[in-house]
């Protein structure tokens, strides 16, 4: 789970647990503790990076170099987490929490950066291995065909969660799929542009307009034209556990739909 409330500081100087009082005959427990401490540190680094990518300067173009470096760090962490299997554990926990609670802002930390609505109908889609789906986030401008698919997927997701979590076979399959979808989620933000206009005159007019930079911007730095909630709301809601008054219940509802959709992509059902 994302660490809630207490701010865990990434121990900078490679703190080792005080081994003085430890029973020397149990090196494994020390190792386990060090490993979990490393995992915690890595997790908090991931959270920090995701927040950094989200907080955006609304007025001035953000620093591309900084965004690229942070995004590379996130990818690195995600790759490592995928390799040692913790990625799947995290996403399973996320989907479990999602099924249990309403609008918790914690999950939005990861998912917000994955899906953002941009101006001009440019969308960001995550491609699942089973069915390439065009995913339109946001409370407005929803594609009707997406909604249908979402409905199907939601049902599938709930079914698989209820009966599939126990079997080993299912787990290993899911693990394989996870690494692939996780790779796609973080490694390739597929940015879908609107169908290019065939009109040559229009094209010429916009030939020097580099819309893709703006898209990358929105992805990497979380810029959005109509924020559902501002960066400071997000930070506030991170520190408080309870459901925060983010928005009206209707947008909360659609947020849940989005979350369900993303979860099933990540979990790979």
């Amino acid at each position, binding site marked *: 789970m994302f660490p809630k409330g207490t701010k865990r*500081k*990434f121990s*900078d*100087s*490679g703190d080792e647990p005080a081994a003085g009082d430890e029973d020397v005959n149990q090196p494994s427990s020390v190792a386990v503790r060090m490993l979990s401490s490393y995992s915690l*540190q*890595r997790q908090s*680094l991931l959270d*920090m990076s995701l927040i*950094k990518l989200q907080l955006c300067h609304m*007025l*001035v*173009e953000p*620093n*591309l*170099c*900084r965004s*690229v*470096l942070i*995004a*590379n*760090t996130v990818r*690195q*962490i995600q790759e490592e987490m995928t390799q040692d299997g913790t990625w799947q554990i995290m996403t399973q926990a996320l989907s479990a929490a999602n099924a249990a609670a309403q609008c918790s802002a914690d999950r939005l930390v990861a998912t917000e950066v994955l899906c953002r609505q941009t101006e001009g109908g440019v969308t960001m889609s995550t491609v699942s291995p089973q069915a390439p789906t065009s995913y339109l986030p946001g409370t407005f401008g929803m594609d009707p065909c997406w909604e249908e698919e979402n409905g199907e997927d939601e049902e599938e997701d709930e079914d698989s969660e209820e009966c599939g979590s126990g079997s080993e076979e299912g787990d290993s399959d899911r693990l394989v799929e996870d690494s692939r979808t996780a790779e796609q989620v973080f490694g*390739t*933000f*597929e*940015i879908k542009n609107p169908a290019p206009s065939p009109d040559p005159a229009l094209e010429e007019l916009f030939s*020097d*307009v*580099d819309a*893709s*930079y*703006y*898209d*990358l911007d929105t*992805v990497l730095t979380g810029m959005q034209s109509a924020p559902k909630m501002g960066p400071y709301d997000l930070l506030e809601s991170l520190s408080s556990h309870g459901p925060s008054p983010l928005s009206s219940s209707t947008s909360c509802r659609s947020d849940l739909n989005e979350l369900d959709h993303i979860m099933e992509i990540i979990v790979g059902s």
Partner: protein
Amino acid sequence: ADIISTVEFNYSGELLATGDKGGRVVIFQREQESKNRPHSRGEYNVYSTFQSHEPEFDYLKSLEIEEKINKIRWLPQQNAAHSLLSTNDKTIKLWKISQRDKRAEGYNLKDEDGRLRDPFRVTSLRVPVLLPMDLMVEASPRRIFANAHTYHINSISVNSDHETYLSADDLRVNLWHLEITDRSFNIVDIKPANMEELTEVITAAECHPHQCNVFVYSSSKGTIRLCDMRAAALCDRQSKFFEEPEDPSSRSFFSEIISSISDVKFSHSGRYMMTRDYLSVKVWDLNMENRPVETYQVHEYLRSKLCSLYENDCIFDKFECCWNGSDSAIMTGSYNNFFRMFDRNTRRDITLEASRENSKPRAILKARKVSTGGKRKKDEISVDSLDFNKKILHTAWHPKENVIAVAATNNLYIFQDKIN
């Protein structure tokens, strides 16, 4: 006074230009040495101030374009006037700075206040004479090089042919002719077809000081590419690729970020180049690509603090570095208003502080030390007491003498060698 964002001496060292966050350029001029005060060589006084760039608004992206001056580069002097290039994120301007200390009086067709005289009233002819006047320094924009960069310009560099210059942004490098403002040649383009595959950006670029066909550009992954413009119109394939292999024992999640090169500078000789990454300065021999010939640690004590520095964004600070005139010493900045100088021959280094509180004017600067171990000696400062808001990112060294300019946030310090 605004935060200084760039500092640059001209070719003779007589002029020192600074650019700030508010788009202003302030030029200092060195006083002629006077016999009255033989102990102080010429001091720098304000010569000219002008507004180079104004804030703009990009209507297409609904974003502001900052007026902050990212770089100033002087052009070689060709006549009595001085010229420099100054750039913000998007537009480069060529400014001509000229001075007048004489004016003509006694025109026949004009009155003293400039009104035209009625020709019939002119009864006699006289020759106008030149009379001294108060020195007036004028800066005028002579060229504006705009609309060639989609991303933020991080470097400009005047070529040794004195006719062309290059400008680099995060993904592209363009070559301009100083006389032509409506066209530029794109010579490097690392923009991927799919922006989602972007993992590396250009961080700095510079022309070779003698070979007008050679330039280098550095990247956020700690690599430097040397390109020869004779090889192809688009220099996407480098002639030389400089990268130091990573030390696997010190690998961390921050390895890539701290390897990102913030500045690259050729030596005056043209044989070496220097790169600055977050923790060190490296000197490269242009003939050896696989590792630098010299590495200097600037503030190695920060290596254990990288996570905090990542949290407060300091890890993304872009420090510059510079050579002295003879290439025997290099200088770069650090935190707490400290800056470091390294002597390449003796391998000695020194840490100095640019601060009004801690040094009186004309007093010799005291060497500073950051304590790294447990015990802190007297006069040492511990790592945790360092002020990370006081960063020295921009420094410049006089091309011929031991005079340095250090920008500490919104203050400019000029230090010179003690004369025996």
